């Protein structure tokens, strides 16, 4: 398919473009995710730059096309970070691009620290976007607490480019912890993850490797505090065989988790299931996949299954949803009829000409 790429560099360019546009458009961030699904691509690659950064207020404002790597580098200089740990799937999906900050929020991409600090959507404070009629809309702001009017910020987070082109995002950042450790616990039961979450020790990562039977529990913070909590957890789990990963090993481990390194170089379809934490292991038992891992205290399931195997059929009445990241199934899990009706109406309000990402969320 031959593609045309539009690379507007300002909101007014986008506005002019959209007012006259009649054909379908694919909104592209860094293209680390979707292959272009429409013939015409509108890219945010020329909308870059950090607009404002106040380390003392824990807030940053950036243009949507700013590469995630630039954001991370800038934050690192002040010893701060995007606490929700945006994952990077381009390696596992063999994509060439780079993530943009707009793409991260448009997909609500959240990593292992989700269970402690919330998802990308919980860190997004404000957006500017341009809807399908070329209207420039802002919502939220750059302050941490804001209940002025409806929260369209949450709506835009995870809307996968179906409601408008996000041009600018403002978000909350947090300090990088002084140190961290990870406990590798030999446990035949995945329920050890929820046990760890039910302590007062502020666990910031829980992962379970079903095949090896190892659970991984991360704690982060100031040095004395981490040592103390580690001792408490060792006491709590004194019946188990435990190895301790120091800060360097721990960082490497969680970076692998957030790149899905464990599922690389493997055949089969790749699925991501989000369920009630204690249901995660149940679904694995039902499916008998080729490989499986649990994150988010059990509520996030990563699977490799036989090509063409329909994971959704097996979920039946279980509350939750399955996303197909590679395979022949629709990427997005179907939603209830009433939610679908509402979502379609919202989409028509924001994009009456049906320009954006027609194949997405459908």
């Amino acid at each position: 398919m031959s593609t045309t790429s539009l690379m507007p560099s300002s909101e007014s360019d986008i506005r002019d473009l959209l007012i006259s546009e009649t054909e379908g458009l694919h909104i592209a961030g860094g293209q680390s995710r979707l292959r272009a699904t429409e013939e015409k691509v509108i890219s945010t690659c020329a909308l870059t730059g950090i607009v404002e950064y106040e380390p003392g207020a824990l807030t940053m404002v950036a243009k949507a096309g700013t590469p995630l790597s630039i954001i991370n580098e800038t934050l690192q200089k002040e010893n701060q970070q995007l606490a929700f740990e945006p994952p990077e799937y381009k390696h596992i999906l063999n994509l060439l691009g780079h993530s943009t900050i707009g793409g991260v929020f448009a997909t609500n991409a959240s990593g292992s620290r989700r269970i402690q600090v919330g998802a990308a959507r919980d860190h997004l404070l404000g957006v500017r976007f341009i809807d399908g009629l070329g209207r420039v809309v802002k919502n939220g702001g750059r302050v941490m607490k804001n209940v002025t009017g409806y929260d369209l910020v949450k709506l835009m987070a995870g809307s996968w480019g179906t409601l408008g082109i996000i041009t600018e995002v403002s978000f909350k950042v947090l300090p990088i912890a002084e140190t961290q450790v990870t406990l590798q616990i030999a446990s035949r039961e995945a329920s050890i993850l929820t046990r760890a979450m039910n302590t007062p020790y502020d666990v910031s990562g829980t992962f379970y490797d079903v095949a090896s039977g190892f659970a991984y529990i991360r704690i982060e913070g100031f040095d004395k505090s981490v040592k103390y909590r580690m001792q408490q957890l060792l006491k709590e789990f004194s019946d188990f065989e435990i190895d301790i990963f120091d800060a360097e090993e721990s960082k490497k481990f969680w970076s692998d988790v957030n790149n899905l390194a464990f599922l690389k170089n493997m055949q089969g379809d790749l699925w991501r299931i989000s369920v009630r934490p204690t249901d995660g292991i149940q679904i694995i038992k039902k499916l008998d996949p080729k490989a499986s891992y649990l994150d988010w205290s059990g509520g996030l399931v990563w699977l490799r299954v036989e090509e063409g195997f329909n994971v959704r059929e097996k979920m039946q009445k279980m509350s939750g949803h399955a996303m197909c990241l590679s395979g022949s199934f629709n990427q997005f899990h179907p939603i209830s009829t009433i939610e679908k009706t509402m979502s379609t109406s919202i989409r028509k309000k924001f994009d009456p000409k049906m320009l954006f990402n027609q194949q997405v969320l459908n």
Partner: protein
Amino acid sequence: MYLTDPNPKILAKKSELVRKLLSFLPRDAVIDDPHETLAYECDALSAYRCPPMVAVLPSTTEEVAKILKICWDLDVPVVPRGSGTSLAGGALPTGDSLVLGVARMNDTLEVDYPNRLIRVQTGRTNLSVTGEVESDGFFYAPDPSSQLACAISGNIAMNSGGAHCLKYGVTSNNLLGVKMVTMQGEIIDLGGSQLDASGYDLLGLICGSEGQLGIVTEATLRILHKPEGALPVLIGYNDSEVAGQCVSDIIKAGVLPVAIEFMDRPCIRATDAFSHAGYPDCEALLIIEVEGSEIEIEEQLAKIIEIANRHSPVELRRAKNSDEANRIWLGRKSAFGAMGQINDYMCLDGTIPVSKLPFVLKRISEMSKEFGLDVGNVFHAGDGNMHPLILYNANKPGDLETCEAFGAEILKLCVEVGGCLTGEHGVGIEKRDLMQIQYSADDLEAQMSIKDVFDPKWLLNPTKVFPLDVSAQRRGDASQETAA
């Protein structure tokens, strides 16, 4: 402030409405006697009052669905109500409306510790949710100061937060799912017990929608294990700029306290006279609380104190035990009561970027002289959420109007420096006519188009949030349309 007049066509349907309601609701759940509807005439913005046409107190989601369907068919506007503690007039009725209160729906439906969640009916009060799980070492984090009285339903509608949201976030960050009834009487489940949704984040959209998109009857809330302990430190400065710098330095050093509260001199004086907390008489007072085990508290407080000392405080008092902690908190917790002793007050909640604090405080004190009304400031310094308390005399003609004009100027200032009109209490009727300060016509149109989807006839809490003239056409209010 202008309150809308009741629509006589709707008032004429009262007996039909009451008859239909009584066909399935017990007599004591339908309140239509004008003496008794008075109980619902206002919320905590008590300067404005208007009894509704009818109030109903359903006990189940199905009853709520039937009530809404009837109102939908009869075109009767509906005002949802939790405990009526809104400071923005969010639960203020119009004379032609039906107030739907969820106070009788206050059961706990499920407590699930492994999955760290509790499911409740939304009439349950905020504090009683924690009460339900406290003995097992858990708590529900969002803690508005009104938590003893306010209901989860109101918390969700206003996306309420409290002093501890610097660490734990506001309602929206702690809400996993809701059961909601649409104006057409359809029951819908959004979210659930998993940590994200397929499709649009409609749950995120409902939270903070001020009762305008649906009536929330059940909520699944995230609960957390309680920290081992918490202790505050009190720090006094003779310059608010220095206090602001101290907060910024603490945050930059990587310490994340659970609460950073700020009080200015007028507020310190008033609260100290009232509560005898023994606060220093200084320009700016900070109360900073950290959590954890003894070792962890020690480690964090040491860092905070080291930073605070760099800025030469006039007082630095560290709580060593819970008695001393209570003494430090005593004044702050009675701040509103103390100001109320002096006079009537209006409490605003605009948010500003933290770095703009000294400038904003200076401007507020200048404006205080211009308007001739005293003002004290309490402030969640970690997240920029201001609480200017403007004192006025409700019995003095014109004082309320002066106070409102002063308040509007403060909120304009908040927006000008990059903040927002409201960080906690919501827009309601109080700030609806200020919305254009923060939002353009297209911004408001985008928000209103969401209401068009959920409530096409604009019957749910229709006179709130949006400027009356801007929403007039959608509400079918011809008088306002021409006024605009």
